[in-house]
């Protein structure tokens, strides 16, 4: 279970398609609030996908990725794979989820 991540992973013809939606403000650090104060940058910098101890895909993100970001990628894998998806943001927060490939 993850508070911030929803993931779907489906295998077909030896390729697993992973679709994920992450809840995160992805603040650019360029916006101001109602009082004119700058809202500090707060964004996911890295997303990593592993199957067991194999890293299969890594994303490095900047502030140009949309709020509540979506990420989809594909890797060669099998039904039953245990896929872990994790992210880390510029404030040092992290979250992680484990799903079984269908």
């Amino acid at each position, binding site marked *: *279970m993850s508070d911030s991540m929803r993931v779907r992973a489906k295998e077909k013809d030896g390729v697993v398609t992973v679709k994920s939606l992450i809840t995160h403000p992805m603040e650019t650090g360029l916006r101001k609030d109602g009082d004119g104060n700058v809202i500090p940058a707060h964004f996911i910098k890295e997303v*990593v996908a592993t199957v067991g101890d194999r890293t299969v895909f890594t994303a490095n993100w*900047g502030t140009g990725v949309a709020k509540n970001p979506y990420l989809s990628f594909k890797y060669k894998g099998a039904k039953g794979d245990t896929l872990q998806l994790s992210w880390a943001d510029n404030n040092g927060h992290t979250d992680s989820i484990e799903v079984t490939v269908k």
Partner: protein
Amino acid sequence: MNRRHFMEAGAVLAAWLAAGRAWAAWPQGAFEAEEPASVVSQLASGKPEHSDAIHIKAPEIAENGAVVPISVSADLEQVSKISIVVDKNPLPLTSIYELTADAVPYVATRVKMLKTSDVLVLVEAGGKTYANKREVKVTIGGCGG
């Protein structure tokens, strides 16, 4: 976060660190570059070669510049990296994707676009950098609410 969830996240991190993997260095120079040319020179191996084998799927007109769906697929061998650059954004580099041998050369995400701009995609394959681009129009709407 509840305690059980926190421990799970910790277990994953611990497993990676044990496997010799830590959070990788984030290419700050490239992400903070204000000119697309600077992004390209920092990320590319030499001058990128145009390639139509890079397919960029994006709406012709973005209905909302805050959320523009982009997907990239590349019919190239040994793709190790895909980067998505929005030329006219204040910070053009949006994202870099590192693919292992197990990954298929494909990625989809949603990016922010400040205004009508080329979306430039760099693909590193077999040690060489290829590029393609596609214009996405962004209209600034007058009615929000």
